[in-house]
């Protein structure tokens, strides 16, 4: 049953991506940027999903610290991995959009670009930290703390366009004084929904994988383990007491 719901989610995500692409193609060209602006339909959802993913990592970390729930730790880790994936997409699509519009792929002095890049590397560090700690409880505790602290960057990245002078355009979608064109908004929202489904499909798949890997590790740790070399194994209780 659970397997089936995952499959349904995967199929829905693929269909939604197809619908999102169709609406993006059919959306009109923007007045000043022409077709370049259509990169917005994949760039903006990628950035928003990265924020959502890191928010889930934050919540997962808090839940683990309060309840010591292994599921919360797995969801936090899976969401961080998918968040790094979407941050990478936001960076690359931003560069591709920036080159024809601004005349440069990257500006080292731009607050939005630099803060997003720093966020990307900090969450890569989060994933590296998890790989470096073999003990599950220590790993969960340290990564929960890092996941909570690292989330500070999300509002910084979001508000960087209003706090600093940047090449990047300011807030576009949530602006009552200059509302976005309805056709553009529709295509953007459909793509946002599609990317959300992709996020859910990836994160649930990755969480399931993490659960199976944890179970395997636990089973292997419980089985006869070698102490030093292939000839010496841990004694069993019956062998020590002679009660075999």
């Amino acid at each position: 049953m659970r397997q089936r719901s995952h499959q349904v989610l995967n199929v829905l995500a693929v269909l939604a991506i197809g619908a999102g692409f169709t609406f993006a193609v059919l959306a009109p060209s923007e007045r000043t940027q022409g077709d370049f602006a259509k990169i917005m339909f994949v760039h903006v959802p990628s950035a928003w999903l990265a924020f959502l993913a890191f928010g889930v990592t934050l919540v997962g970390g808090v839940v683990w610290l309060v309840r010591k729930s292994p599921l919360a730790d797995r969801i936090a880790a899976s969401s961080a991995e998918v968040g790094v994936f979407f941050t990478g997409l936001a960076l690359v699509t931003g560069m591709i959009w920036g080159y024809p519009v601004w005349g440069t792929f990257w500006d080292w002095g731009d607050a939005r670009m630099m803060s997003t890049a720093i966020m990307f590397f900090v969450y890569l560090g989060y994933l590296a930290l998890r790989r470096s700690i073999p003990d599950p409880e220590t790993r969960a505790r340290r990564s929960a703390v890092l996941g909570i602290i690292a989330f500070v960057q999300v509002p910084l990245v979001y508000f960087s366009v209003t706090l600093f002078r940047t090449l990047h355009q300011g807030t576009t979608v949530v602006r009552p004084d200059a509302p976005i064109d309805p056709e553009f908004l529709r295509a953007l929202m459909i793509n946002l929904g599609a990317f959300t489904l992709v996020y859910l499909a990836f994160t649930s798949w990755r969480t399931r994988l993490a659960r199976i890997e944890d179970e395997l590790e636990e089973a292997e740790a419980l089985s006869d383990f070698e102490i030093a070399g292939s000839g010496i194994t841990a004694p069993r209780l019956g062998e020590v007491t002679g009660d075999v």
Partner: protein
Amino acid sequence: MSEGWVVVGYSVVYGFMILYTLYLVGRTRRVNRRKEG
């Protein structure tokens, strides 16, 4: 010219989605093999 960059942008996004899916498929297979073995 303008269409070219848009095509590159969309190809990158969908391409990486496919690559990540393939990574998950490969990892799932490895885990299932470990489970059976």
